[in-house]
C-alpha cells in the first residue's frame, strides 16, 4: 500500500523520516514553515565530537530526500481526523489527505533574555551559542573583537527551576566544549573558561573531546554556575560564580560571554498538537507512549513523533529516531 504520510517539520528528523519512508514505498510529504530544509543543523558550523562540518551532513540529507514532496514556507493551518486518516489544511489553503502524521517539529532555542541576570540583549558582549555558530560560519559578528578572555555558561535555561526547565538539555555540554576549542582555534591567545555544573559527556568520543579541550586547547573548566553578569566602565563583562571545587566565590572580567542555550519544545506547533490530541510531558515536550518501546508513538493512533520534539537530543539520536519512526509508520499502515 502506498499512502500519504504527513511529516511536519523539515529538519534532521523530518528529512530522515521522509527519506526512509520513501525507500519503504510510501509517499511522505514534508511541511516546512521556513524557506529551507535542514532545521537547526543547517545553522550550525561544525558538529561535535569530531568537528565534522554540519554542511556535509545537511547536504547528504538533502540529496537523500530528493524526490520527496516538500512544501516550503508552509504551515499546517488545520488538521482533522477522518475515517481515512487525516485531512490537513495548509497555510496556502491546499489540503492533504494522509494516513499518518509524523510530528518532527523539533525544538526552539531557549530565549536567553529570560535569564535576565546574564544580560543577554542588555550587555553588548553576551551572545548565544547559536550566534557563535553563525560567527564560525560567516566569520562576522561585530561583538567579537579579538577577545582575550572568553567565558561559556552551561545550562542556560536548563536544570533551572527559575525558568521552569528542570531537565538537562543533553547536548549543550559537548557543544560548549566544542565551541570553546573552536574559539581557541580562532583566538589562540585568548583564555577560555567554561562554567559548568556537571560535564555530561554521554556519547562516544565525547570524553575524548573533553580531554582534548583540557590538554590540547587549554580550556579552563570551572565548576560553578555563573550567577550574575555586569558591565564595567570599559564595557567588559564582570561575572560572578562560585568555584564549587575550590569552595570560594570567584569574580572575573571577560570580553565575551557565550550562553549555552537549552532546547525547549517548538511552541509554534502547539495548536496543531492540541488538535491532534498529543499531550506534553512535565518538561513541556511532547508526551511519548512509552520510554522504551514506544518512543515514536503518541497516545493517539496514527500520530507519530521523532526527534527533539519529545526531548532534547543529539543529532545521531534524532536520526536514529527518524529511522525508527519510518519503520513504525510503515508497520502501522500495513497492519491496519
Amino acid at each position: 500500500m502506498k499512502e500519504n504520510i504527513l511529516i511536519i517539520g523539515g529538519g534532521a528528523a523530518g528529512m530522515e523520516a521522509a527519506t526512509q519512508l520513501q525507500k519503504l514505498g510510501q509517499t511522505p510529504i514534508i511541511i516546512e514553515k521556513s524557506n529551507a530544509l535542514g532545521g537547526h543543523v543547517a545553522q550550525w558550523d561544525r558538529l561535535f565530537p569530531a568537528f565534522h562540518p554540519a554542511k556535509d551532513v545537511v547536504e547528504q540529507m538533502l540529496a537523500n530526500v530528493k524526490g520527496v514532496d516538500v512544501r516550503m514556507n508552509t504551515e499546517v493551518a488545520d488538521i482533522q481526523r477522518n475515517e481515512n486518516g487525516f485531512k490537513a489544511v495548509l497555510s496556502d489553503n491546499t489540503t492533504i489527505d494522509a494516513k499518518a502524521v509524523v510530528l518532527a517539529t523539533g525544538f526552539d532555542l531557549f530565549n536567553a533574555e529570560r535569564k535576565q541576570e546574564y544580560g543577554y540583549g542588555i550587555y553588548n558582549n553576551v551572545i548565544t551559542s547559536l550566534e557563535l555558530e553563525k560567527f564560525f560560519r560567516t566569520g562576522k559578528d561585530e561583538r567579537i573583537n579579538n577577545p582575550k578572555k572568553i567565558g561559556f555558561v552551561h545550562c542556560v535555561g536548563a536544570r533551572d527551576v527559575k525558568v521552569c526547565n528542570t531537565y538537562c538539555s543533553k547536548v549543550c555540554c559537548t557543544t560548549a566544549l566544542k565551541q570553546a576549542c573552536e574559539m581557541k582555534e580562532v583566538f589562540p591567545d585568548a583564555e577560555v573558561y567554561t562554567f559548568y555544573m556537571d560535564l555530561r559527556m554521554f556519547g562516544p568520543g565525547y570524553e575524548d573531546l573533553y580531554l582534548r579541550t583540557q590538554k590540547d586547547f587549554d580550556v579552563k573548566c570551572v565548576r560553578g554556575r555563573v550567577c550574575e553578569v555586569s558591565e564595567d566602565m570599559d564595557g567588559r563583562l564582570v561575572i560572578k560564580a562560585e568555584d564549587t571545587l575550590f569552595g570560594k566565590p570567584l569574580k572575573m572580567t571577560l570580553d565575551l560571554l557565550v550562553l549555552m542555550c537549552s532546547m525547549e519544545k517548538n511552541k509554534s506547533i502547539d495548536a496543531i498538537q492540541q488538535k491532534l490530541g498529543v499531550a506534553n510531558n512535565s518538561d513541556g515536550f511532547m508526551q511519548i507512549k512509552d520510554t522504551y518501546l514506544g518512543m515514536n508513538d503518541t497516545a493517539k493512533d496514527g500520530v507519530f513523533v521523532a526527534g527533539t520534539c519529545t526531548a532534547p537530543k543529539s543529532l545521531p539520536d534524532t536520526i536514529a529516531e527518524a529511522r525508527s519512526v519510518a519503520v513504525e509508520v510503515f508497520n502501522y499502515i500495513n497492519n491496519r
Partner: protein
Amino acid sequence: MDFGFCLSPSSHVKMDSVDLTTFNSLKETNPDINTCIACGSCTATCTAGNFTEMSFRRILLMLQRGKEEQAKKMIQKCMLCGKCTLVCPRGINIRKILLDITR
C-alpha cells in the same frame, strides 16, 4: 579610631589579578595538570590525607586561584608515597608535579 569591628577581606577569588606564573610554568613541563577532572581519587587514597587535609586536587586549584603559598604549605604534608599517581584516572604524574611545584 577603634570601632570594635573592621573591614573583612573579600572572599572572592579575583581571577583578573591572580598570578598564574607558577601554574603556567608547571604546565610547560607537565601538560597533564590541565586534565584533572577533580574526581578526588588522589585525596581519598592519600597516606598523608589520612591524617591531614592534604589534597592534590585542591593544590592544583590553589595554584590556579592564586593561593600558591597555601598550596606549598599543603604539600609539606606529602610523604611522596605515590599512591595518588597510581589511582589517578587521568594518568597524571601527581608525585612529580608535587615535587616540581616546590622547585
